[in-house]
């Protein structure tokens, strides 16, 4: 008898070996795609969107690449998801996590072909991951106590992170920028407080960090262009026509003169409001919403600088830096906290005018102005800087630091190899495979740099058999070098997140023995 159909028409079902094959192939394809971006000599990718305008992005950031891909393979989707999470959690290592998970699956594929059950592989991987994590946490350097040293650690991390990005030419400059910005946050991880302004023009070297705050707005007409010892009121209030908020209220009049009267009353109301605001004794007023011409004129008359339409983030940051509160009512001027700064002036960046607040009270927020030749360069620079800032802010919280350049992978691989030798049973194959997957990362870094990876990795492995070795791949000179001397460091938190989420994802994909794809939802064709 014919086998009964259970699933819907377009749904498909893949079982056992075929399902496993499908997920391996998908995952490895994704890995191969982003593999070439890994390391300081990694290449970039051009992404062209299918949407309107066919916008082009040039990037080296794993998460950005993967986010823009349209993937149908479910296993590949898992990898994209871990890269996204890595981006949200620690900000960097988005490529590494995908590559490691892919390599783990590649090794697992071989083991499965050698008739080792996926469950055995998983338990081996688990043991190996645990062992690798312990190996790392034993070798960390923690310079929490020593502020001077810690700062140099941060510099090293920033340099390492940036060296694989477009900013690598000016990494010294940008590393300094990023470290300064993060140190100002004083341990908070709220990167919102760091504003990045992109202005095309000039070169990347012209980018700078501003201690104060730059608001990308113009000063209202006829108002002072420069204020010293400013008292700033940051507000979120309607400065157009102040609507009556009581529901259902409307104006109904029977003659033109009445309209004029009410208009007069409305004007009067606005004037009162402006008076109240001015009564706070301020000379700068920043509002999130629009300021209409009439109140603006009133402010100008009073010699108060009025800035309209600052976006919400801008307002929050401004409130942060100046120490004022965001006000919406103005009836008790004595209790509203007013922000202060030494100097407000209009400055020119490139060809555009911006408002610059300097000498602010609370140094928590700051602004980084990026300059560069084109929008693509600036976008990529922003992403790179964002990565660096994320890593640094996470490192400030978890101050443990590791060496970079393939050093952590080699340390882990060595420990995991030891474990494999001690473990009886089939699991040891899986543990060995784990160590091979770890070694794949320095291999890829070397390959991407056009070096003889087989030779280098072998040398590295030999070097690591000595105790307390600091050897890693020095991509610049193309040899094995001392990472501590070269000042290449990475954050422990990032490495740990890479290791754990890659293992988790690989395990998840390995456990699958059947893929059921439902029929795609029918979409109305809009054509």
């Amino acid at each position, binding site marked *: *008898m014919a086998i*009964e*159909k*259970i*699933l*819907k028409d377009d*749904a498909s079902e893949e079982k056992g070996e075929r*399902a496993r094959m499908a*997920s391996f192939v998908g995952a490895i394809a994704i890995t191969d795609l982003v593999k070439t971006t890994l390391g300081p000599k990694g290449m970039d990718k051009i992404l062209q969107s299918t949407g309107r305008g066919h916008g082009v992005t040039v990037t080296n950031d794993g998460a950005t690449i993967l986010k823009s891909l349209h993937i*149908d393979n*479910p296993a590949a*989707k*898992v990898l994209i*998801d*871990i890269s996204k*999470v890595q981006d*949200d*959690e620690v900000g960097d290592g988005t490529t590494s996590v995908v590559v490691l998970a892919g390599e783990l699956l590649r090794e697992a594929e071989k083991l499965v072909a050698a008739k080792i*059950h*996926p*469950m055995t592989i998983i338990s081996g991987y688990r043991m190996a991951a645990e062992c690798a994590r312990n190996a790392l946490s034993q070798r960390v350097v923690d310079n929490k106590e020593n502020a001077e040293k810690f700062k140099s650690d941060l510099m090293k991390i920033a340099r390492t992170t940036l060296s694989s990005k477009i900013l690598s030419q000016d990494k010294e400059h940008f590393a300094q920028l990023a470290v300064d910005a993060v140190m100002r946050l004083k341990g908070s*991880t*709220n990167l919102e407080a760091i504003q990045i302004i992109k202005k095309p023009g000039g070169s990347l070297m012209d980018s700078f960090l501003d201690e104060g705050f730059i608001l990308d707005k113009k000063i209202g007409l006829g108002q002072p262009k420069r204020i010293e010892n400013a008292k700033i009121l940051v507000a979120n209030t309607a400065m157009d026509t102040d609507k*009556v*908020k*009581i*529901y*259902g*209220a*409307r*104006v*109904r*009049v029977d003659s033109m003169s*009445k309209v004029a*009267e*009410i208009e*007069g*009353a*409305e004007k009067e*109301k606005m004037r009162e409001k402006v008076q109240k605001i001015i009564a706070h004794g301020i000379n700068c007023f920043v509002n999130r919403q629009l300021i209409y011409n009439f109140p603006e004129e009133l402010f100008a008359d009073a010699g108060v600088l009025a800035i309209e339409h600052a976006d919400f983030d801008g307002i929050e940051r401004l*409130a942060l830096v100046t120490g004022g*509160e*965001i006000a*919406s*009512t103005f*009836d008790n001027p004595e209790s509203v906290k007013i922000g202060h700064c030494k100097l407000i002036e209009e400055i020119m960046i490139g060809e555009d005018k911006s408002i610059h607040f300097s000498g602010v009270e609370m140094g928590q927020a700051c602004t980084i102005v990026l300059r560069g030749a084109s929008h693509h360069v600036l976008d990529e620079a922003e992403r790179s800087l964002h990565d660096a800032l994320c890593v640094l*802010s996470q490192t400030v919280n978890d101050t443990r630091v590791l060496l970079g350049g393939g050093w952590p992978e080699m340390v882990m691989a060595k420990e995991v190899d030891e474990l494999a030798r001690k473990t009886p049973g089939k699991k040891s194959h899986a543990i060995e495979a784990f160590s091979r997957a770890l070694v794949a990362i320095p291999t890829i870094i070397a390959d991407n740099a056009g070096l003889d990876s087989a030779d280098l990795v072998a040398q590295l492995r030999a070097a690591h058999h000595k105790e307390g070795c600091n050897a890693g791949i020095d991509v610049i000179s193309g040899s094995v070098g001392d990472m501590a001397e070269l000042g290449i460091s990475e954050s422990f938190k990032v490495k740990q997140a890479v290791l*754990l*989420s890659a293992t*988790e994802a690989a395990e998840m*994909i390995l*456990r*699958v*023995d*059947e893929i*059921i*794809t*439902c*029929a*795609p939802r029918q979409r109305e064709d809009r054509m």
Partner: protein
Amino acid sequence: MALAFDEYGRPFIILKEQDQKTRLRGIEAQKANISAGKAVARILRTSLGPKGMDKMLQSPDGDVTITNDGATILEQMDVDNQIAKLMVELSRSQDYEIGDGTTGVVVMAGALLEQAEHLLERGIHPIRIAEGYEMASRIAVEHLEHIAQKFDFGPTNIEPLVQTCMTTLSSKIVNRCKRPLAEISVKAVLSVADLERKDVNLDLIKVEGKVGGKLEDTELIYGITVDKDMSHPQMPKQIQDAKIAILTCPFEPPKPKTKHKVDIDTVEKFQTLRQQEQKYFDDMVQKCKDVGATLVICQWGFDDEANHLLMHRNLPAVRWVGGVELELIAIATGGRIVPRFQELTPEKLGRAGLVREKSFGTTKDKMLYIEHCANSRAVTIFIRGGNKMMIEETKRSIHDALCVARNLIRNNSIVYGGGSAEISCSIAVEAAADKHPGVEQYAIRAFADALDSVPMALAENSGLQPIETLSAVKSQQIKENNPHFGIDCNDVGTNDMREQNVFETLIGKQQQILLATQVVKMILKIDDVISPSDF
């Protein structure tokens, strides 16, 4: 086809548009149904047990779910066949009733159908088979009661509960840290359980997940988490000994439900209206402050002015809190949900020892923790994990564990797992079969064989020789008259499930057998399938 002839020999049609319908009847129909049921069972068979594999499901919108939970697999499978839908229904009802064993019940039903097919081939009438199954299931359920053990636990001795939850969790992807998760589940259930009435309201346990971190960071919070932040960025992030006003009215001017119009036609009216409006905001905030609230949680939004006034009076507030969360907060803090500002009184405020805002990761993700509540009966399990699928799967696993713990509190009888209960039932049913006169004897014996299929699948998934292992365990059970021998899935070295601490709940097992039998009976009784053709 259903073609009949009238007295003159002319054919007439009974079914509407019958040439467009396909029809199966008699033994054909039964066989088709059985094979559909078996096909569903076959999909789930490999997910059974601690070494069971997962399934990857891609939804119509392209979202990926990876799971091991039978009910979830079937639910998302987008099944078209009617009989297969019955099986889906079956696993769902096990999920609603018991919460665990959703895979087992389908595998059991599949095995029963397979056995029935053999019997049908030998010419036994389906009703006789159904009756035989019914008898056998009764014997099995009674036998289960016989071999079940009661065990004692209390608020201090939670070990047995933890062990049972661990058995449930060990088949899931989270088995890496099953111990902590099992402890979390048991503690959560115990803290909301009413031990006197032996009842647990699982609605009081909220399971929240957030991607990031690792599975080990999963924690139990004696309080509530809300995925919201303070309405004003400069409000305090931490409040000690909070008195919480829980509001369902917005900080906005009232909107009367009857249609009305306020006409403004004079300047005076305009001004009075304006003053009223200002006063209104002021009153609202003052009212909250007057009753002594130190935190306002509101279901609706705030007007900018109100927001600033709150900030100004140093009254932190949270807006847009969902209805369910609001209720949980009310339960946890012992407060009352207040629909109108006028009704706010000090007694209606909820109390919590600590309210704090916590931020995650590099994006601006914030959550509000409400802890040390006056009434600690509402708890939250907060799951962390490497990716979205992991979190979803952990949520499902925790749900299973919670259900198991609840069932144990309702009825503290357990049977041993690892297939031992099934083997023992199978022996008992087999023995009973011989005593039974009549054709049903065959059906009862077939039932015993079907019971064997669960341990067989367990052994198969664990990479053991299924038939060899099963027969060895069975003979051991009979020889030593000890129903605790099962399949040693984890290769621990002993077959005695009592030593391995593998338990399952008695009601879960009983329900499995009863539900599976019922569905199989239903399928067997169908002898005619009429379905519209595809075109």
